[in-house]
């Protein structure tokens, strides 16, 4: 539901059903709402059958890349005699995204149950839940819930009496956007600086502590108990015309919008209706100018692209962007696009881990050039320079943070070029003091 707002009749409420219901937070409360039946059922199945079920459902990663979840699990080696690890990515730091926080705040046991099922399926006895350090409430709630799940016997040496060991550890991050990148997160978990690793090896071969590891986003794992209980066919049927994008997705809507919040939709739901109907549309007298649909790391869409775009993985790509994490940043006609793009570039420059030259230099230089344009000191050739820089930052680095900085810059210049030109020609008053 659109927490903090009441559920909208056009939402498909699965993961968010108990947002705002404090009674769902305790173990007892979760069990009364049907919780832990899925874990019980999964523990009675062969691990591979659980993986196949998830494969069959069509569930894809909700952390940004959209990789098929069951397929990822199936990459884990079998009978290799090594410890396996499950890592839950709860670093949620992608600007515009605030869904994992609500899952953990309201339904901690939904996540614990999903993690336990996934751990069982991939043959892991230990699951680390890496929560960003600033999430003080989710950290407290998740820590209490894990302790309760141990006390109730759902976790520990014999999860729900199955004879299977499932341990769960909450790990607190310490402030670094880059630690959301899966291999940076693993380094951080090992007590290192959060630098992304060169792949291969992929996590399923050598992940955290050098052992086979599966890493999934909070929302991905929270969907798993529902698939186990209601079946792969039910989940797969949750699609609006595109069989490659199945299930429900929490969309965090923020920015210039009347009712910011998390809306749970069936994938394929019209983006325009999501913005104007579910989230209440623009402030009075305002019109839609742009949307960044997948967290700040994806290309900017203009109002025309939003008009007939179904909200799912493939269709958003066809309309010039990506679903990403599902954090939708809405901008109305009062928005200074150049200023917003500069602010995003500054974010990436600040968060670059500085390992790769193209990223370290590129994010800083991009920010400087945009600053100069905003200060009324831009030159006509600056737009080509920005595009050139972006080109050099795309597809050439260890992780995609560098590409993420280029995405709003390139799409912004393509779609809102006249706004840049207005600053460069001095037709528009400088927005920043000279640097």
């Amino acid at each position, binding site marked *: 539901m659109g927490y903090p707002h009441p559920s909208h009749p056009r939402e498909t409420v699965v993961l968010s059903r108990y947002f705002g219901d404090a009674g769902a937070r305790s173990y007892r409360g979760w069990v009364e709402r049907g919780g832990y039946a899925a874990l019980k059922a999964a523990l009675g199945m062969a691990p591979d059958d659980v993986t196949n079920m998830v494969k069959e459902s069509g569930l894809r990663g909700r952390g940004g890349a959209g990789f098929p979840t069951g397929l990822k699990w199936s990459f884990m080696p079998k009978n290799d005699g090594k410890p396996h690890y499950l890592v839950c990515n709860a670093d949620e730091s*992608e*600007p515009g995204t*605030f869904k994992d926080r609500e899952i953990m705040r309201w339904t901690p046991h939904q996540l614990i149950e999903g993690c336990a099922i996934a751990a069982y399926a991939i043959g892991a006895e230990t699951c680390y839940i890496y929560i960003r350090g*600033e999430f003080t409430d989710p950290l407290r709630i998740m820590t209490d819930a894990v302790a309760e799940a141990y006390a109730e016997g759902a976790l520990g040496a014999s999860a729900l009496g199955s004879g299977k060991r499932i341990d769960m550890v909450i790990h*607190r991050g310490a402030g670094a956007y880059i630690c959301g990148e899966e291999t940076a997160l693993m380094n951080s978990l090992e*007590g290192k*600086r959060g630098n992304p690793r060169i792949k291969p090896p992929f996590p399923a071969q050598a992940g955290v502590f050098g052992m086979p590891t599966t890493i999934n986003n909070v929302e991905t794992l929270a969907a798993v108990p529902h698939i186990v209980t209601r079946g792969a066919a039910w989940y797969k049927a949750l699609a609006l015309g595109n069989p490659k994008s199945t299930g429900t997705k929490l969309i965090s809507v923020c920015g210039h919008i009347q009712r910011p919040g998390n809306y749970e939709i069936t994938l394929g739901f019209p983006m325009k209706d999501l913005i104007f109907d579910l989230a209440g549309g623009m402030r009075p007298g305002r019109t839609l100018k742009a949307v960044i649909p997948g967290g700040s790391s994806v290309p900017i869409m203009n109002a025309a692209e939003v008009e007939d775009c179904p909200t799912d993985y493939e269709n958003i790509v066809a309309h010039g962007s990506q679903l990403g994490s599902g954090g939708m940043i809405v901008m109305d006609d009062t928005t200074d696009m150049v200023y917003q793009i500069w602010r995003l570039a500054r974010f990436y420059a600040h968060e*670059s881990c500085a390992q790769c030259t193209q990223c370290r230099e590129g994010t800083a230089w991009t920010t400087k050039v945009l600053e100069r344009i905003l200060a009324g000191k831009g030159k006509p050739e600056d737009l080509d320079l920005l595009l050139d820089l972006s080109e050099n930052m795309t597809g050439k680095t260890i992780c995609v943070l560098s590409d993420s900085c280029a995405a709003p810059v390139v799409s912004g210049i393509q779609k809102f070029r006249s706004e840049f030109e207005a600053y460069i020609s001095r037709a528009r008053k400088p927005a920043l003091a000279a640097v």
Partner: protein
Amino acid sequence: MSQHLAQLHGAGHGRSGGHAAPHEPVLVGDTRARLEQLFTKYPTKAACLLPALWLVQEARGWISEPAMAEVAAVLGLTPAYVKGVVTFYTMYHTHPVGRHFIQVCTTSPCGLCGAEDTMKALLERTGCRELGATSPDGRFTVMEVECLGACGFPTPILVDDDFIEDVTPDRVAEILKRYP
């Protein structure tokens, strides 16, 4: 990670002594017991570095060089390695900060909804000269931070461990009253 606290404010003010005071071990008693408990949850001791640093910061308010050396000794790491890790993350303080540490998000989604005005109001009302500086009375330090993962509740701020949503300039005075 380029703009770290260390460069942003002069050391000296704030709590619990400066650099001159001899280092009193932190990882003792109850704190040590909590750390030892953590050793059982990870296959390596090094994995307890971030948790150990949290324990130090909880106890002392910041992480001094001697404290880093102490953590290094307990975990079998070098002080230089520990310092490299401490300075990578924005939430660890390598200098004393005010009695209350305030983090305010100004990233684009919040920026669209007036976060910069909230930040200015926080600076003004706390008496902090600039971002990263501690107020003359030692009560507050204000830091601008990137997305706090609560963009639907602009502007979120963290005061110590209290996460506060929907902070507008007109709410600032009332909120600060709660932190003497």
